[in-house]
């Protein structure tokens, strides 16, 4: 997927991505400070927002191939199970109850199958929205901070789910997270956004371990521990 000269104004905020590429079947991390435009960019790709100008070349992907889990996931006024199978219902697919139950059981929600989804804790809602995004085998999955709110076990589980998926049947991912340890573990590529611009792109190693852009260094020095100061004296 290719993004070129994408522009979007949101109040005082201006998103301006000159060029960005997503490689099919790869996991892309999207990092940057609060308000740098990560969610806005995701919504543009998802088609929830329309760009002021510029182009997104989906290279054959249709809207039904793309999904996104939001920072505050929407839960239908219905049970956990009904929420999980909603994307299947939309596609006229008869849900396989056994398979659905396996998904639920993997993230510890099986005994809550018939509970009202809105009564789940926010972490549980995020887990549910995550497996709801995976269950119908989309080709591009955007995960907007779904993992930030999870306990260590669940975070690990989701790393595993993503990596498993990539082994079996690779799909394209955009993972937004402030947990850089996590980004480093699961991503093939990392994109760094600042004030609506894409400042750096590369492998996790390049971006997180040996950042060359001063803004990335600045960002990492404040947030994370593992960036190695390549000979800079302080």
């Amino acid at each position, binding site marked *: 997927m290719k993004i070129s000269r994408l522009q979007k104004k949101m109040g005082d905020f201006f998103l301006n991505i000159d060029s960005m590429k997503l490689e099919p079947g790869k996991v892309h991390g999207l990092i940057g400070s609060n308000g740098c435009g990560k969610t806005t960019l995701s919504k543009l790709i998802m088609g929830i927002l329309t760009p002021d100008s510029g182009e997104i070349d989906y290279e054959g992907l249709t809207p039904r191939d793309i999904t996104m889990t939001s920072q505050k996931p929407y839960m239908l006024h219905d049970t956990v199970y009904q929420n999980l199978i909603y994307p299947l219902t939309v596609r006229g697919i008869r849900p396989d109850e056994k398979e659905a139950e396996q998904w639920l059981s993997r993230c510890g929600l099986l005994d809550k199958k018939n509970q009202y989804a*809105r009564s789940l804790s926010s972490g549980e809602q995020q887990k549910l929205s995550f497996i709801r995004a995976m269950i119908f085998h989309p080709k591009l999955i955007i995960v907007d901070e779904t993992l930030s709110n999870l306990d260590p076990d669940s975070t690990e589980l989701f790393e595993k789910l993503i990596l498993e998926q990539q082994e079996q049947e690779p799909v394209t991912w955009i993972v937004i997270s402030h947990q850089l340890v996590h980004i480093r573990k699961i991503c093939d590529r990392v994109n760094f956004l600042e004030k609506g611009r894409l400042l750096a792109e590369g492998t996790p190693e390049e971006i997180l371990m040996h950042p060359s852009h001063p803004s990335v260094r600045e960002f990492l020095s404040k947030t994370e521990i593992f960036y190695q100061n390549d000979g800079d004296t302080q």
Partner: protein
Amino acid sequence: MEGMQQIFSDFFSTVGVVDSIRVTLIMSFWSTLIASLLGITLGFALERKQFPGKRAVIRLNRTLMGAPPVVIGLLTYMLLRKKGPLGSLRWVFTIQGMVMAQVLIITPIICGMVYSYAVQKAPAIRAFAKTMGADRKQTGRLLLREMKNELYFAVVSGYGRSISEVGAVFLVGGNIKNNTRTMTTAISTLKGAGDYYEGVFLGVILMLMAFAVQTLADHFRKEETGDENF
């Protein structure tokens, strides 16, 4: 005992109590039904569509929500009377005419409520529908389903207005016994004749109906706010 029964049946037949209840129910059923269809459609459209003058339309809607029913009644009467632009319908002093006046009163109320709810809830529902790959039709159905408590509440509020309204119904319907006399206009008639107790009796029935409707509304209201996860 005999005497009591006599008094009671006199009261029922002279004012036409049974018919007034019937007329109230028929009128409020149709006016609520039509106003709900119009109000829900318009409320969603108002939230969805961008057009020049939208703010003015919203302000007009808010104004109409609080418009005195008797004024709407007068306007409807002028439209419907023999020499009026809609005189050929022959709806003056008929239930149809009363329904028309009430539709004009209630539609802005339902539309305004639906609009406010839609502004709060619809964008998130639409965005969610998109992430799930729902098409237009599925998205529309999802909106109705996800907002059904709010929609019920708006409809029930409209219904409550409808059964309790008196001014417009009086002007357009003419308070004709066994014909266009409603419970509310029957009460005014009883008051005019000095039959206060009978008026109160009818009033109690009306209040019970309003109470039932309000209970229903509160029920939906509670469900709507009871499930937020802050």
